[in-house]
């Protein structure tokens, strides 16, 4: 089983390297993270925290948008592309199960995403530390950011596979992926914001809203990073919701999403007759 999963992983890594996805993802992460870090060097004094903390706070906001986007762009072709090329029917006639195929692709693309995140956020973190200093707590915050960003990426890779298996064509899967990103990363928050404003600080805002927020992997990612470091929360300005939730809520949500996404993708792939 492991041998066949690794065969798939190896092939997919080759494709990611060859079609420059790995390079592009890493370059995108690094450029955005560096730009945010350098732009954020101004307010350091007024908040009384070191530059790395400010940088981590900005990168958290960046990762909420960028990591799901990169993950979905990598994942949308995974099943639909194979169906279109006619290779899915062929590989499944080998002693390779659908679960193994999915696991192999997931490992490869997650590794690429982890590499891009580590290099991008690591480089920006190093620049921030060199320019404006860093403490033990801000280094820990950076490590947490990288680890949770990989989890966030894992969740959206898995959701991307599910979309890819459900869509039937690569073009349809790309549309599905963009829609998923828009709904889960942008519209979900806007909708909640509207509800909070309408509620005007009532029961919904105090008791329901934090849980609904934690239910979304992108928000769970934000909450986890905010709750993990008071200073990041201060710099990020998102303390209310984090304080209202037990500490396990956001991490549990972010840990469960990749598993739920993979289960969904496996079920969708199982229904497919190539």
């Amino acid at each position, binding site marked *: 089983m492991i041998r066949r999963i690794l*065969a798939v992983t*190896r092939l997919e890594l080759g494709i990611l390297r*060859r079609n420059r996805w790995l390079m592009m993802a890493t370059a995108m992460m690094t450029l955005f993270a560096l730009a945010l870090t350098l732009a954020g060097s101004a307010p350091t004094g007024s908040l009384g925290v070191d530059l790395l903390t400010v940088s981590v706070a900005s990168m958290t906001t960046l990762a909420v948008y960028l990591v799901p986007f990169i993950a979905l762009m990598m994942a949308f072709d995974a099943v639909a592309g194979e169906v279109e*090329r006619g*290779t899915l*029917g*062929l590989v499944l006639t080998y*002693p390779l199960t659908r679960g193994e195929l999915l696991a192999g692709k997931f490992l490869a693309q997650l590794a690429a995403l982890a590499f891009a995140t580590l290099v991008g956020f690591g480089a920006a973190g190093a620049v921030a530390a060199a320019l404006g200093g860093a403490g033990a707590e801000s280094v820990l915050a950076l490590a947490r950011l990288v680890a949770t960003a990989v989890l966030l990426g894992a969740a959206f890779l898995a959701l991307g596979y599910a979309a890819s298996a459900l869509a039937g064509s690569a073009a349809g899967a790309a549309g599905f992926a963009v829609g998923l990103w828009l709904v889960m990363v942008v519209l979900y928050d806007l909708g909640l914001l509207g509800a909070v404003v309408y509620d005007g600080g009532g029961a919904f805002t105090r008791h329901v809203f934090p849980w609904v927020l934690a239910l979304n992997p992108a928000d769970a990612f934000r909450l986890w990073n905010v709750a993990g470091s008071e200073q990041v929360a201060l710099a990020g300005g998102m303390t209310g919701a984090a304080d209202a939730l037990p500490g396990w809520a956001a991490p549990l949500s972010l840990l469960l999403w990749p598993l739920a996404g993979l289960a969904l993708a496996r079920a969708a792939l199982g229904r497919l007759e190539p």
Partner: protein
Amino acid sequence: MSDPTDPVLTVADLSKSYAGREVLRDLSLAVAGGERVALLGHNGAGKSTLLKLILGLTRPGAGRIRVAGAAPGDAAARAATAYLPEQVAFHGALTGREQLEFFARLAGEPLRVVGPLLERVGLSAAADRRIGTWSKGMRQRLGLAQALLGRRRVALLDEPTSGLDPVSRHDLYAVVDEMAAQGTAVLTSSHALTELEARTDRIAILREGRLVANDTLSGLTARAALPIRIRLTAGPDGADALQAALGGSRINGHALDLTCPASEKMARLARITALGGAVADVEMTPPSLEDIYRHFATTEGAP
């Protein structure tokens, strides 16, 4: 080793419907090790569905399939089966060698077989170039190369000659013969009866999901009992005189077409030669492969 005449692939009373439409009905077919069987039928006759059922990619509505003693889709059945899809594109970013090494890993074959195999299908020179730069025929050859990995007991080739130039087609015949010589049961599907199918041991014809013929080419030819066509070129007396003596239909002033059952061929020839100088030339055409196929695959030959 099992008896080579034992069927390696058996299909019994197979039925399959898609959304209420019956695609295959009560289909039974067996292929022995070393036997080459051609599966013919129009588009939509159920060939691809049958192959997918044998590969375990879809489940039958009724009936039973055994592949090398295992149920379709089982690990043992998959390991024993080679498959060449009709249209396979592969990922353009990979080289041919990388792609074939991947299949070798999945099949549990050592990577050292990859080089000779690429050479075998004539892809050595292109092996380290991206598949994206290859021609359709080269991709088809790569598909063939992966079907040759390991010694499999059953080979399913879906329209293997489509998109191949005559030289590649010739190589394909050689590959099919070699597989059969090694004891592999080879089932090739096609929408026409061409050279490749004529070289097989047996021909199975599907029409609207049912097996309407399953015989050798000579058996099919006898059963179809299609007439032989004879074209006569008239001598100086012209075609009218010939038509008066032999019947048939005039093509123009000096040619006449006749048909006759295969059994009366010699008698008819004797009558023609008896006319002496009235006939300048005789051309006889036995029923073509295409004629025989059409007889069974269309309602023309309906029992």
